[in-house]
Each structure stands twice: as C-alpha cells, then as structure tokens.
C-alpha cells in the first residue's frame, strides 16, 4: 500500500518546508496521507500557514500519551473542502508537548471546527489550550476529580 507520493503531497511538503524551515519535520507517508511535526512554539504559525494553503477545517483532533518519552502529542487532522486537489488528503499536524505541563495555544481561532475536539483533549489528556473560548469538561462528569483518564498511568483494574 505504499505508493509513490504524488505531486500535490510534495507541493504541500515543499510549501510547509519553505515557510517553517527546520522548525517542522514534514513527511509524506503515501498518497493522501502526510504529517507535519512541530514544537508548541511553532504550532500557530504552522496552522496559519496550512490554512493559507487551503486546509480549511480540522476533521479531528487527538491526544496521544507517550509516558516513556515524557511527551504528549496533540494531532490535528486537516483536510480541505474548498480546494479540490486537497480533498483526498489528510494532513496530520502533530504538536509535541511536555508531559509534565502540556500546554499550547489554541488553534480554534484558526479552525473553529477544532473547538469540541480541543475540549476533549483537555479533559482526557490534561492539555491546556491557551486562549480557548470555553475550555471546560465535555464528556466527563462535572465531579470527576481523577487524573486525565486517557493518560496511560490511569489503569482500570477491571480491564487489567
């Protein structure tokens, strides 16, 4: 299922590389899938650049916990409705955060569609999205006072 990367993925990769230089690691996985890895300092710049390229909405946002590497990754999956040649593409913008104090500027001002997804990542992984318009619990009960449940160190005895 590895196919030769087609040109549009390479074009996007080149544009991102030009804009962010060594601050971003760009990788084309296959036709229709590529990723951009950045540190939190460059998240907003990367987002604005990708938005200018035509990535007009976030199809999803996911947190991932890597306790052994002491980091939390927030992945924004981006795609486009307005540019036909990008419609087949899912670009994952991965923001690397420190696990002790995971905090990054919100990207809801760039993609409003990330709003509820960021709230979910906030309650499930404890990621603080600075400047989020309404950073409150979404799915969890109001009285939940345990650790962020999707972190790997929360073990559920019944499931062990």
């Amino acid at each position, binding site marked *: 299922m590895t196919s030769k990367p087609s040109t549009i993925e390479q074009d996007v990769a080149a544009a991102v590389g030009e804009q962010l230089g060594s601050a971003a690691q760009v990788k084309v996985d296959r036709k229709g899938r590529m990723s951009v890895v950045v540190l939190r300092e460059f998240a907003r710049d990367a987002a604005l650049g990708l938005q200018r390229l035509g990535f*007009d909405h976030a*199809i999803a946002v996911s947190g991932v916990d890597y306790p052994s590497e002491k980091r939390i990754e927030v992945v924004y*999956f981006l795609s486009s*409705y307005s540019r036909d040649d990008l*419609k087949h593409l899912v670009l994952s913008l991965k923001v690397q955060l420190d696990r002790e104090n995971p905090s990054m500027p919100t990207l809801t001002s760039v993609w*409003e569609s*990330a709003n*509820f997804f960021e709230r979910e990542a906030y309650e499930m992984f404890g990621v603080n999205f600075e400047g989020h318009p309404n950073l409150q619990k979404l799915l*969890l009960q109001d009285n939940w006072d345990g650790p962020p449940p999707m972190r790997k160190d929360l073990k559920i005895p019944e499931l062990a």
Partner: protein
Amino acid sequence: MSTLDLNVGPQHPGSGHMRIMVRTDGDFIVEATPDIGFVHRGCEKIAESRNIIKNIPMLCRPNIADDSHLNWSYVAPIEELQRVEVPERGRYIRTILCEINRIASHLYGMSIMAGIFSGHTTMYMFGFGDRELLLDLAEMLTGARLTFSFFVPGGVRRDLPKGFKEKLLETLDHIERRLPAIDRIFVSNPVFIERARGVGILREEDAIRLGTVGPVVRGSGVRCDVRKDAPYGVYDKVDFEIPTFQEGDSLSRWLVRFEEIKQSISILRQAIQDIPKGPIARKSPIVVPKGEAVSRIESSRGEINHYILGDGSDKPYRVKMNTGSFKNLSALPFLLKGARIGDMPIIYGSLDYWPVEADR
C-alpha cells in the same frame, strides 16, 4: 433585556440522551449550549486493553444504526498497518452491506426528523416499515439486524448466502416503488415544506468553517463525499452522483438523505451485478504492527475516522474515534442562535445527531 434560561434535557429526544441549555428572549433563542457526555462509556480507553478482534463489537455499538461504517473505519487502519489487502469480493460485500446500512440509516433519520420532531406520524411509520426490509437483508447476510460486527481485518466473516441477490433486487424494487409515495406525502407536501424550509440556515462558508460533514455539509452546497474524494471499497468502480443542495436549511439536509437513498439503490444494483467470484477474506495476523494509520469512511452521518496506533502487540496503543455526529455538533449552537424555540426540534432533527456516537 430580560432573558429566561431553559434546560432542555437531559432527555432522549429520539436517538439518545443529551441536553441543551438554552437562553431565550421571548420566543427566540439567544444562546444555546449543548451539554453532551451522558452516554459516554470510555470506548477509547477500554479499546486500549482489549485484543483488536474483541474490540470490534464494542467499537461498533456507539451507533447501532450505522454499525458497518464504524466497523469498516476501525478495521481499515489495522489492515493498512498489517499490509493486508482485502480481496475484491470482500470489498464488494463490504460495499453492499454499507449501502444497505446507509439506506436503513437515512430512512431512520428522515423518519425521526419528519416523524418525531415535526409530528408527521405517517412518515415515521413509512420510514420504519420500509427500513425493516433492509434490516431483513442485513440479517440474511450477517445474522444480525443492527449489530453486524461483520468486517474483520482482512475481509468479511461470511459470503453472500444463497438467494441473497434475488432478495436484494426485490427489496430495492420495493423501496424504489415506495419513494414516490414518500415524495407525494412529504417532499411535495406544503405543510412539511413550510415547517422545514428556511429553518436553521447553514451557509456554505459556515458549514466549512464549522467542519460539518455528510448530509449537513452537502445540504449547504459543498460537493464532498469521501466515497468520491478518496475512494475505498469499490466506490471507484460504481457510478453514482453526490446530491447537494444550495439552500443550507433543514429541508435541504432532509432532501440530501432522500436523494442519497436513490444513489445507494443504484450502487447496490451495480455492485450485486458486478461482484466477482473469489475469496472473501485474507488471513491477517492478530497484532497491530508498530506505526499509525487513520481511516476515512463516509458514514450515513458523514466522514468518520479512526486513528489507530500500534505497538506490535495484539492490543492497539491508542484508538481515536471521530464520528460524524461529534463533528456536526459544532453546527448545533450556531444554528440554534437566533432561531425560534419551536424550531429547535426540527433543527436538531435535521442534523441526524446520534448522541451515543458523539459521546462514545
């Protein structure tokens, strides 16, 4: 300005529990805040501690009206990581089940909106009666009416049973004969049209900005469908259209579903005619190899994605489910703002929102 806060729910308005906190000024909604999570079950957390095969039924349950799409979306990234390709006959059978499922789900959604939320009991009876025939087909193929859990990494569990083709074609003919009746009683019915037209308008730019998917975004004039944009299964081998409407109101969203049923009938006829002989599944290892993959499947409620990370064991390291209802939730507060309280049910119904799928 004196406003009144209304607490709508938590209740089961037609497809699961959710609550909307509404601030009203007279008859108009000033602000609406959805409060979800009443049916949150921690599916993603549970999935991390279970074998990938045992996960299949659990991860399909959040939307029993759309089981096959959630199923496909979950197994597709695993297959990608395992580098297992589903044989062509398997892909045809998956497409057939998914389209049967789509018609059944759209009939359900249309019935709930027109039947429950706007009080046309006849539509409810029409939709649910005809949907039963499609569930019979699904039962014939999978053994279950709703909870199929039919797709496993590598293919499908069973081949088409004897007499399936005849029964499918017979059912499609019947549904097709019924569509003009639905058209006559609802689509061309001034009472229903007046109830839904111009209510809850979502313009194209807002639909894109809010990241809505499926019939919601297509009802706002955006021509997009994963089945065309990034074809999977055998959608690149069958001929079909993407129905869109420009108005962006509740009626358009309802009509998109109505038109999509016709397209699904056409897809099913082509698929059952062209299906090749051959194996239905390939052997696949019961491990998720190290790596990550994300799927894109066009479910009845729009594009869904499963983001799966593997660490080489038989359990996924992380499963993120992104469902159509959760994505379309962003449109709800936007549409309700400024609407009349009396229009709230029909706007909610037009999104075909499925709380369990959103809460997971």
